[in-house]
């Protein structure tokens, strides 16, 4: 039985949802045009991930094995609706920027994957740690992609222009392609390759096959 610390940290780097497991890719590319959007998406998905993992784990004795996937989907959809309403109520600008990708959290494979592979088999507290760790890993990955695309593609960071010299002149021409669709694919492809090269994933040549655990 792994330690609590391990349950939390494994989702951040070793089993990072986006770069290693390659799940939940759609929002990772679609909403990472800026760090702010990436952070908002990461927080929304993490909230759903933690809540659904805890509830699935608490109900694991009650959910029959044959109908577990529909049950997970209903639990996840409920939390997505709640997050959607909270975002619309308190962070209206962010909710407009993320548009359909907030309701689409419901079909994010990371969340269903963790409910199936972890929440359904483990205790409530462990599921909470697993959800928090995976959510943090997802958020950090989104911020990393968003940061690269915003700094190099738009020439800003958190909406403030950077790349200015002492006289306020722009010293770097932003590469607009990076905030458009092609840039997203290229940045994520390069980051994935980088993660493999620096991580210990070289020993596992089958890493591009989806592994739930």
């Amino acid at each position: 039985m792994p330690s609590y610390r391990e349950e939390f940290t494994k989702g951040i780097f070793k089993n990072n949802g986006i770069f290693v497991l390659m799940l939940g890719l759609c929002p990772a590319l679609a909403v990472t045009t800026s760090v702010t959007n990436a952070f908002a998406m990461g927080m929304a998905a993490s909230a759903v991930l933690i809540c659904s993992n805890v509830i699935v784990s608490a109900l694991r004795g009650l959910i029959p094995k044959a109908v577990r996937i529909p049950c997970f989907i209903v639990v996840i959809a409920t939390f997505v609706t709640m997050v959607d309403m909270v975002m619309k109520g308190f962070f209206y600008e962010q909710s407009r920027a993320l548009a359909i990708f907030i309701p689409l959290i419901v079909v994010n494979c990371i969340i269903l994957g963790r409910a199936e592979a972890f929440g359904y088999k483990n205790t409530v507290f462990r599921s909470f740690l697993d959800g928090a760790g995976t959510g943090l890993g997802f958020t950090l990955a989104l911020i990393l992609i968003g940061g690269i695309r915003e700094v190099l593609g738009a020439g800003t960071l958190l909406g403030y222009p950077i790349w200015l010299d002492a006289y306020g002149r722009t010293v770097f021409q932003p590469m607009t392609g990076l905030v458009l669709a092609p840039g997203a694919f290229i940045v994520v492809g390069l980051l994935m390759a980088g993660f493999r090269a620096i991580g210990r994933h070289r020993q596992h040549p089958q890493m591009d096959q989806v592994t739930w655990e």
Partner: protein
Amino acid sequence: MNLQLILQIAILNLFVQNFVVQRFLGLCPFIGQSDDKHKAIGMGIAVTFVMTMASFVTYLLYAYFLVPDSWFLRTVFGPGAGITEAGLLDVLVTVSYILVIASLVQFVEMFLRRFVPTLYRAMGIYLALITTNCAVMGVALLNTTDAPQDLGLTGAVLQGVFAGLGFTLVMLLMAGIRERLEYLNVPPCFKGAPIAFLCTGLMALAFLGFAGMAGLG
């Protein structure tokens, strides 16, 4: 529904706003299933089929049940009641759409297994994966709550068909590229998904050339 509108929907969803390379929907099956041409075709047909059905059903659900002052709310709660005027969009869209899609996929799978076994053998295994394909849920949302203007039932179904065909087109292109990539000597850390992403990026760059085509954004 005139021919011009049909063509507009077709070009928009096939090329200009292609679901995979421009709208980033359905990437998991796109990366996971595009390493082989037969898999790509099977997945493409299954997705097109489910997207068409899902567009039809979710549009009816939206127009007759969920919108404010809909037929269902008027009949059950009476016109002018609080819930009739508020509608159910905020609270029920996500839950009802995902349930409709999940049960639709299950139903199609059972129907095909019973009545069209040849087709079931060709695309049966992909059907199970489609419930969590965000392209299906995405087309349902883009047809209804997030549509720029009301598409009508025909428009919604057409958008479903052409979005699915656009998905199939990109799947096939990618499968062709990846079959060639098998024989190339790419660095080990780029093997598989990372190089596929870089190729998709170049493909997306090519698809950007369609922007503004036929007066569409």
